[in-house]
């Protein structure tokens, strides 16, 4: 009989410690936030507000997708915020300044981000610069280049109204009347599904985990570590590029001074979602939930008229609590 209790105790404990549990807990926290805010304010529980939350998550969510990969390898990418800005500016330059077709402009934005990620990857894996330093450098470089190229002025997309429709139009709304969820949200979910497939099904995803779990062992197994690490940072750059195109479309302008600080929101979303900063563990679903927790919190607190400075304090506390819960979970 005692052995049976021991066994069931062990099962309960292993269930509590499992990765799935982490996601259930994060999702539970998100639902709880929704319930609390819904009770607290009738303005929170409107369809318009829910759409607002979704839209507010789109840019940070897409950024966080790429950062998830990087953090699972045990690395960090501080440059995604300003890489996003650079991509937005490049899109603006192509479409508005050079009068290129909109798809070419979008492609240019994506490419700019991807290229920045590729440079990050090479600096880290071949020049052996620690990720923190390499991407900190890239943060400044991108910030500077964005200002240089835009000559310090925002670039507006007023000649090409179709560009704004990319994020702010609603394909769903045109199919289901009244269900006006902006395309940006669809893009977020589409990108998340692709990212999740890459992470769980492809060779790149496998090596992402392997690198974070034991890089030396991966190298000794004959895997070309430099190549795959570069690929991970390149992918992260691609998502930053996508976020850049999205934010430009949403604001109908490329704002060269915007972007610093976004990388921290993205990292916060990844961490709240249960991805371990020491590498080897993490999931896209967790990251998406993490991003929603942040934007729901911001939105709800704003509706409750909590001043913005206090919203920051709350978000910071949540980040620390989330990681602490995760540490408790892992502890024997």
């Amino acid at each position, binding site marked *: 009989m005692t052995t049976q209790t021991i066994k069931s105790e062990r099962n309960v404990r292993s269930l509590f410690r499992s990765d799935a549990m982490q996601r259930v807990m994060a999702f539970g926290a998100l639902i709880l936030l929704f319930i609390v805010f819904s009770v607290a304010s009738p303005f929170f529980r409107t369809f318009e507000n829910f759409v607002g939350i979704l839209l507010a998550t789109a840019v940070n969510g897409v950024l966080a997708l790429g950062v998830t990969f990087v953090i699972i390898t045990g690395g960090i990418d501080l440059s995604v915020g300003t890489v996003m800005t650079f991509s937005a500016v490049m899109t603006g330059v192509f479409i508005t300044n050079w009068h290129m077709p909109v798809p070419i402009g979008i492609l240019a934005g994506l490419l700019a981000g991807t290229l920045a990620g590729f440079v990050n990857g090479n600096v880290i894996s071949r020049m052996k610069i620690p990720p923190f330093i390499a991407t900190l450098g890239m943060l400044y470089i991108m910030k500077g280049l964005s200002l240089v190229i835009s000559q310090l002025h925002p670039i507006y997309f007023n000649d090409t109204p179709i560009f704004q429709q990319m994020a702010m139009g609603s394909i769903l709304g045109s199919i289901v009347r009244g269900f006006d969820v902006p395309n940006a949200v669809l893009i977020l979910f589409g990108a998340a599904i692709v990212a999740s497939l890459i992470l769980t099904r492809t060779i790149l995803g496998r090596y992402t*985990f392997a690198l974070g*779990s034991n890089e030396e062992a991966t190298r000794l*197994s004959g895997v070309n570590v430099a190549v795959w690490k570069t690929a991970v940072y390149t992918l992260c750059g691609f998502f930053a590029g996508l976020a850049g195109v999205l934010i430009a479309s949403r604001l109908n302008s490329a704002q060269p001074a915007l972007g610093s600080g976004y990388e921290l929101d993205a990292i916060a979303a990844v961490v709240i979602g249960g991805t371990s900063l020491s590498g*080897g563990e993490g999931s896209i679903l967790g990251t998406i939930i993490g991003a929603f927790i942040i934007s729901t919190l911001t939105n709800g607190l704003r509706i409750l008229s909590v001043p913005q400075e206090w919203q920051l304090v709350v978000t910071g506390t949540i980040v620390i609590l989330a990681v602490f819960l995760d540490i408790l979970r892992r502890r024997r």
Partner: protein
Amino acid sequence: MTTPVPPSDGEKILLRMEGISKSFPGVQALSEAKFELRSGEVHALVGENGAGKSTLMKILGGIYHKDAGRILLDGEEMEITNPAMAQHLGISIIHQELNLMPHLTVAQNIFIGREPRGKVSFVVDDKTTNEKAAGLFELLNLRLDPNTKVADLTVANQQMVEIAKALSFNAKILVMDEPTAALTDSEIEELFTIIRQLRDKGVGVVHISHRLEELKLISDRVTVMRDGKYIDTLSTKDAKIDKIISLMVGRTIYESSPELPEKPNQEVVLEVRNLNRGRVLREVSFDLKKGEILGFAGLIGAGRTEVARAIFGADAYESGEIFIKGKQVHIKSPGDAVKHGIGYLSEDRKRYGLALAMDVKENVALAAMRKFLKMLGWVDYKKAAERGREMTAVLNIKTPSLEQKVKFLSGGNQQKVVIGKWLTADTEILIFDEPTRGIDVGAKSEIYKLLNDLAHQGKAIIMISSELPEILRMSHRVLVMCEGRVTGVLNASEATQESIMKYATMRSDVMLASA
């Protein structure tokens, strides 16, 4: 007629390494070393730590690049430039440190770098991966679930995963660097069965081990290396262990006096009463006397290290009392333990015992920094250096200078640095956890001598060891554990391999039945 047997028809020469030299900054690791491997033989490679065995094999595996020499595979000269190429040439190496990715599953680990792909080439096919792994385990008679995470396996099973991985390459040459260090006897027997199967299939196996008793059991020939040089190759059948040892060390070895004087009426320094922690520690009680070496014997997982960590404040315990010199103490952290004069020398020196990137004198001062502080937290480096010099002399630490980073020292010398550290902190109670693991014969006997000297000076010593000969040779008394319980305490006169094993396998159901 003990001249080397020429290879018969079935035994062609798989590998020949000649004139291999390799230097690292400050060290000539190999000078003109050579090695030969035939198909269908188990060839043991022995030598003290730092003799160059692992370096030689890492050159074969494409991890290091040789400065000079040639490698012939099947008579053809090869430049092996990277690990992937070595694998491709049929060379598999199981490294001394386990090289697995703990967050991935068993099957994912085995097929890392050559995952079965799906219809689209960048998609991995986990189903096939698992099936192939399961097939491999069946072949090797292993009971492992391909889908468990490696982090959830025991060390022994992780070792088995490494072996399965190496074999999955259809290796012609299999190198195993200390594969048995973490295994129990029955697991070693299983491993040897697998090695024999491979040998019979014509695989050439290189077996690096510090356990010389094993050589007779498993190897056909043995090559001895010393100081980066080739010394001799013998047929294991004809070679006496003593002969091998003398070739390895090139000097005589300290033997501790076999009969240890009983030390009656000594003061009890440490008293542990009814220590409990979950199912890991159950009602653990014992005394430790001044000037005594108390051996902790038991199978892996019996809870010996856990007792040590609890006493040292590294893990919390749920109930129980600890007395030092008759006074009850509450040790909540390693800092408390150090204040009470307890030092712990972990079995994993590199992870828990040393600051690898710091130098010898800094490591020696580390646990007693307060002694070396001047005003405002300035470190008195002159004093630290003095102490370092003293310890290097007393403990016979072989280091080019006090400024040498400890990561460049050999295992035995690293262990001595850790001992120096605890001596500097004025510890009265020293807990040695597997003090000679991964340490070569020569350095081993020096460590034994040190332990005896420390006991003579009145230190109280707990020595945890999985090697029974070591326990029998060193301990005044032997405490045996099984499944978190103390199952027996034997005096040196009563302790034999048989009596210890009896208590070490005394599981709770047996105890209940006999009660």
